[in-house]
């Protein structure tokens, strides 16, 4: 089950202030229909281009036996993205402040677990853009599309931005337009200065009308001037995304409606398209100037906007963070393992057990996914959380026949774009029985708890399996006949100790003994 419905969804084409909570909440279920997904993702798109992901592992509340509610506030991302735009000093044209507002929507993704216990995300995760790479859009359940202004609403203000702005209307205004200044009715200036009056509008401007009063007179005179004859459609600055086939350019129509658009790359012949995006295909390394021109009915060209895309050599691409399927944003660490400790060979008719610990630094790296698994048929590979919440990949099973060159490989992926690749060949050898056996275990409670055991035979090392009262399992190898635990052992923790005979790199286990910690 994916995202079931929206609980809070900004209104279509509504105006929202970046400096107040912009809340979206969804009703979500786990992939298998259980009520609580392990993670719910909110992918934020500005102007149709993926920006960043917010992810949560904590739900708000259970909505039913099969769903839960999840809430996201995207204001911080909006504040990062939007900036003021200084209009041209002493300019005489009506300027669009492109960087101060944006069209926005969010795509939500739920998640579940696969058969091995790994988190699996639904839909296609987007990839964040960097200074040297363009973003890749993903898929998901999409919210309404709304508009965010780089604006502040104070706590005491009307929280409806449109109504708040309308408090400052002076003179004649259309319903949809609003001033973006608190200027008083009478505004004092001297001659010879530059000034603009900022406003949010939804209609095409055709004329500028001046009302003026001569010195000493009481009557306003008027003059008009046409400012936008012909096609006056206004579009946003074209932006670029990476796609499976190369690159794509996309833009929004801000004012008016266009019959079509013309796209020209590096001054080449324009290509006519009917929608507000266009695939540029695979581009070789270089800088490309892309000109998008709205075209009105009657084949009249509007004002073109130029944007540029720079394709750099692959070896210069960022290898840093992308906020794909993981925690999103900065701080995502790549998965790592200790490659210096190879997994052992299998011992025929002996239980195989090996945990590959991910990220030995103890940094939380979950959630992660595992793909491209190649393994012998006798082996099981599953995800688990070890002691201290460390994520492990657990290899288990019992080989029943000898074999050579059996491949164990997989790809583990998290939010970092660098995947962990594991690939090793192992043999299954007939080690014969390990005749060693544990004959006694003594627990000493002290500053550091200590286990001491006795053994019959001469094993190579000892394998200790700890089962904590909450079911958590962790394992360790020890080469001596005792082990101290400075962090202590837990009451009712069960420790089982096997003698291990290593033959040809394979581990055969002898007769174990267990102790329950009093």
């Amino acid at each position, binding site marked *: 089950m994916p995202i079931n419905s929206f609980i809070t969804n900004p209104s279509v*084409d509504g105006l929202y202030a970046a400096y107040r909570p912009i809340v979206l909440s969804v009703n979500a279920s786990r992939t298998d229909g259980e009520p609580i997904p392990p993670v719910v993702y909110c992918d934020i798109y500005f102007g149709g281009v993926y920006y960043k992901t917010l992810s949560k592992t904590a739900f708000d509340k259970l909505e039913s036996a099969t769903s839960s509610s999840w809430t996201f506030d995207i204001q911080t991302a909006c504040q990062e993205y939007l900036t*003021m*735009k*200084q209009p041209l*000093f002493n*300019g*005489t044209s*009506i300027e*669009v*402040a492109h960087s*101060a*507002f944006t*069209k926005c929507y969010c795509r939500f993704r739920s998640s579940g677990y696969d058969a091995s216990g790994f988190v699996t995300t639904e839909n296609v995760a987007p990839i964040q853009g960097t200074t040297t790479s363009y973003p890749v859009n993903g898929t998901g359940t999409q919210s309404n599309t709304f*508009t965010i202004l*780089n*604006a*502040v609403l104070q706590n005491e203000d009307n929280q409806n931005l449109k109504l708040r702005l309308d408090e400052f209307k*002076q*003179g*004649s*205004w*259309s319903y949809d*337009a609003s001033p*973006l*200044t*608190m*200027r*008083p009715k*009478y*505004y*004092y*200036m*001297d*001659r*010879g*200065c*530059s*000034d*603009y*009056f*900022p*406003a949010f*509008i*939804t209609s095409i401007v055709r*004329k*500028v*009308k*001046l*009302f*003026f*009063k*001569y010195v*000493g007179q009481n009557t*306003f005179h008027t*003059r*008009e*001037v046409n400012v936008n004859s012909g096609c006056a459609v206004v579009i946003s600055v074209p932006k670029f995304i990476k796609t499976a086939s190369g690159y794509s350019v996309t833009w*929004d129509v*801000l*004012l008016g409606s266009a019959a079509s658009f013309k796209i020209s790359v590096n001054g080449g012949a324009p290509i006519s398209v009917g929608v507000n995006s266009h695939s540029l295909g695979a581009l070789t390394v270089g800088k490309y100037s892309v000109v998008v021109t709205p075209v009105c009915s009657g084949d009249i060209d509007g004002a073109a906007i130029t944007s540029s895309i720079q394709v750099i050599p692959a070896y210069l691409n960022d290898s840093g963070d992308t906020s794909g399927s993981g925690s999103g944003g900065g701080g995502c660490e790549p998965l790592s393992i200790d490659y210096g400790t190879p997994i052992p060979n299998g011992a025929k008719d002996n239980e195989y057990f090996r945990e590959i610990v991910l990220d030995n630094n103890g940094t939380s790296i979950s959630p992660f996914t595992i793909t491209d698994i190649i393994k012998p048929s006798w082996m099981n590979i599953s995800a688990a959380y070890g002691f201290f919440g460390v994520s492990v990949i657990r290899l288990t099973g019992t080989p029943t026949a000898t074999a050579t060159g059996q491949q164990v490989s997989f790809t583990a992926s998290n939010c970092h774009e660098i995947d962990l690749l594991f690939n090793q060949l192992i043999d299954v050898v007939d080690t014969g029985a390990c005749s060693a056996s544990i004959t006694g275990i003594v627990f000493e409670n002290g500053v550091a708890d200590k286990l001491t055991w006795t053994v019959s035979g001469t094993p190579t090392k000892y394998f200790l399996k700890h089962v904590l009262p909450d079911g958590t399992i962790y394992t360790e190898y020890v080469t001596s006949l005792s082990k101290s635990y400075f962090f202590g052992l837990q009451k009712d923790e069960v420790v089982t100790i096997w003698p291990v005979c290593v033959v040809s790199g394979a581990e055969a286990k002898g007769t174990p003994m267990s102790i329950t910690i009093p």
Partner: protein
Amino acid sequence: MGAIINIPNGTNNVFPLFPSINVNDVEDYYVQILDENDTPIASTTINKLVSCNDTVRIHFINSFGCVDGVTLHIANVKHSAKSEAYIRSKSVPVIKSNHAQARTAIEAKDVFVGKTTHYGENEMRWLDELFDAPLAWIESGNPKELIPIVILDSEREKVKENDAYTYEVTVEYILSHEKIIINN
């Protein structure tokens, strides 16, 4: 959808569109933008042209993320400089024109004080935005350009009981770029 636009409103922005009008003959004006049916989309507030010497126009970011502006009278400019002492060893043979102590690490700046009395109690919240603005500029130079400034922290009275109809708003600012002082 929609868009944030900046409507030309200053005399240097709007009167070039109407070359037949002499701005020196105009006292008040405002601007409307019209749609294709000649219906007003938006109207500016009424601009009252004042003539006074020593004015400065400050542009600042307002709370709606746009560039706003206010014209002030420059009431005062204070220059301040501070430095550290640099002691030189005495030259041998003695050169009388050489310094024994000189100044180093000189930091100098002008503190400008702008004032206006055009606005009353109802306009104080708008002027708060000038005092609270993270970024501001003045029009300066020849030809004029936008020069970044820093509005200095301050505290002011925005509602008062006595002289409630007269509000003198005083803004202190310095140039954003510190003065570069020659070393030797």
